[in-house]
């Protein structure tokens, strides 16, 4: 093949690789340009720390602290439920289960990751809400399940990256199998476990549809685990359909705040995984 084609295709490959740079730049640009003016017009503190969200009032009041709090409560609860179960499942997969069972459990965990969030939502509406109501707790339980595959995958690869000698050394010192795994291997993989938690937080805070279907979505400061709350993500989906002007800008600003949260979480995650490597 001639030199021209060779160089031309090389350029095309490079441009394709640059597409993701362009995409991130466009996403940040459009969200910030459309969201920030609103935040600065009403004052960042009033917007971020305002406890009242009443877009229908005259004049409208836009404070997103209730949604920030809702997202934090629900994410925190989801981690409390999903992290221990996920890490223990990862220990099971990496160090306990026989190969034949691994071949059945692992695809199951992968399937859990592939189930659409609306299906989780329908499941939550019928299997969780009847017991705990449209509440923060319901959302925590459902999200705890939804982040399992993420936590399991990252924790498992972290556990597998621990050198075999650590485990053998522990056995040689008289530890049993489980004590060697929990006392030596798991602590050695702790940065990976932390990374799993961080990515789980990212998943939970960004989840939208399933949360809307079980969390009640009241735009008020969370009052109890058994009462409803609204997340940042839910705020956007619920009101974007009919919002106009200032209200619409406030919702885009909500998205910008969410994006900033996610970027911080992503940076933390890559810092954690890079140090290990």
């Amino acid at each position, binding site marked *: 093949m001639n030199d021209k084609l060779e160089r031309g295709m090389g350029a095309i490959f490079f441009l394709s690789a640059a597409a993701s740079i362009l995409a991130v730049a466009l996403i940040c640009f*459009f969200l910030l340009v459309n969201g920030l003016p609103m935040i600065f017009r009403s004052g960042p503190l009033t917007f971020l720390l305002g406890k009242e969200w009443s877009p229908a009032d005259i004049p409208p009041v836009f404070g997103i602290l209730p949604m920030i709090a809702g997202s934090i409560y629900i994410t925190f609860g989801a981690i409390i439920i999903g992290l221990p179960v996920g890490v223990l*499942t990862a220990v099971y997969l990496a160090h306990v289960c026989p190969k034949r069972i691994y071949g059945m459990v692992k695809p199951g965990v992968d399937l859990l990751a592939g189930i659409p969030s609306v299906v989780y939502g329908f499941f939550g509406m*019928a299997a969780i809400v009847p017991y705990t109501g449209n509440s923060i707790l319901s959302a925590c339980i459902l999200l705890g399940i939804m982040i399992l595959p993420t936590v399991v995958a990252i924790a498992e690869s972290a556990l597998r990256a621990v050198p075999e000698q650590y485990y053998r050394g522990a056995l040689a010192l008289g530890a049993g199998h489980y004590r060697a795994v929990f006392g030596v291997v798991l602590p050695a993989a702790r940065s990976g476990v932390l990374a799993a938690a961080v990515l789980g937080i990212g998943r939970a805070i960004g989840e939208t549809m399933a949360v809307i279907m079980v969390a009640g979505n009241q735009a008020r400061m969370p009052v109890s685990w058994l009462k409803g709350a609204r997340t940042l993500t839910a705020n956007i989906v619920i009101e974007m359909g009919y919002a106009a002007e200032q209200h619409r800008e406030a919702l885009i600003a909500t998205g910008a705040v969410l994006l900033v949260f996610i970027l911080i979480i992503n940076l933390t995650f890559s810092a954690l995984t890079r140090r290990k490597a």
Partner: protein
Amino acid sequence: MRPSERILAGLTWTAAAATVGVLFYLIVFILIKGIPYLKPSLFSLTYTSNNVSLTPALVSTVIITAMSLIIATPLGLFAAIYLTEYARRGNRAVVLVRMTTETLAGIPSIVYGLFGLLFFVTALGWGFSVLAGAFTLAIMILPLIMRTAEEAILSVPDIWREGAFGLGAGRLRTVFRIVLPAAMPGILAGVILAVGRIVGETAALIYTSGTVAQIPATPMQSARTLSVHMYALSSEGLHTDQGYATAVVLLVVVILINAASAWIARRFGAKK
């Protein structure tokens, strides 16, 4: 076994059983709630407010999936080729590409939806359309396709490339004649996973491709996918049972997609 060993063993087994148990419970639950409402009328060609047929949504799902893949697959594949075969190690552009790809992978779907609304729907003036939805989803699945393609390409042994170079093939010919054919199953497995992401997506589509329950005649019309259809049914609250029936269809599709991807990846792994 010492008591402490026994407790740890109990915890581990319980957690694993809970994970698998939840999966089974969810699947069985959706099947039990949905199968009684899987009637032929649910598959009639048109959607009406009395008969919430899922056929238009099913067809729209296929259309949006195909369009997103047509956009994202070449882009992701070429990017992976650049990163693995062309770029020099430690090149600053490569570091930036990797960082942004990681970032894209972590951005929640509602943020993609907002971006699609601001950029494709509003700034480019496409309106609520299948095209806007497909472009939004294409960006969303790009990191997944890039990463899986990169892994597949990296797992082709270097000695094959050296062999091709030794026989006088250029870099481009080596990539297309030697590397890509060998990496194809891995690339395909990634594309299938991307199909799963698209089929399950809701938040990124509501405000880009919109929620009209029709088979789109042109890419500039609005249409809803199965997932969006389910959400619409749940938020209207009148046909929740049909929502569960739709969930059964969606669940079956997702299970098939996952099985196909795993099967291809396994065959690939065995060959290596």
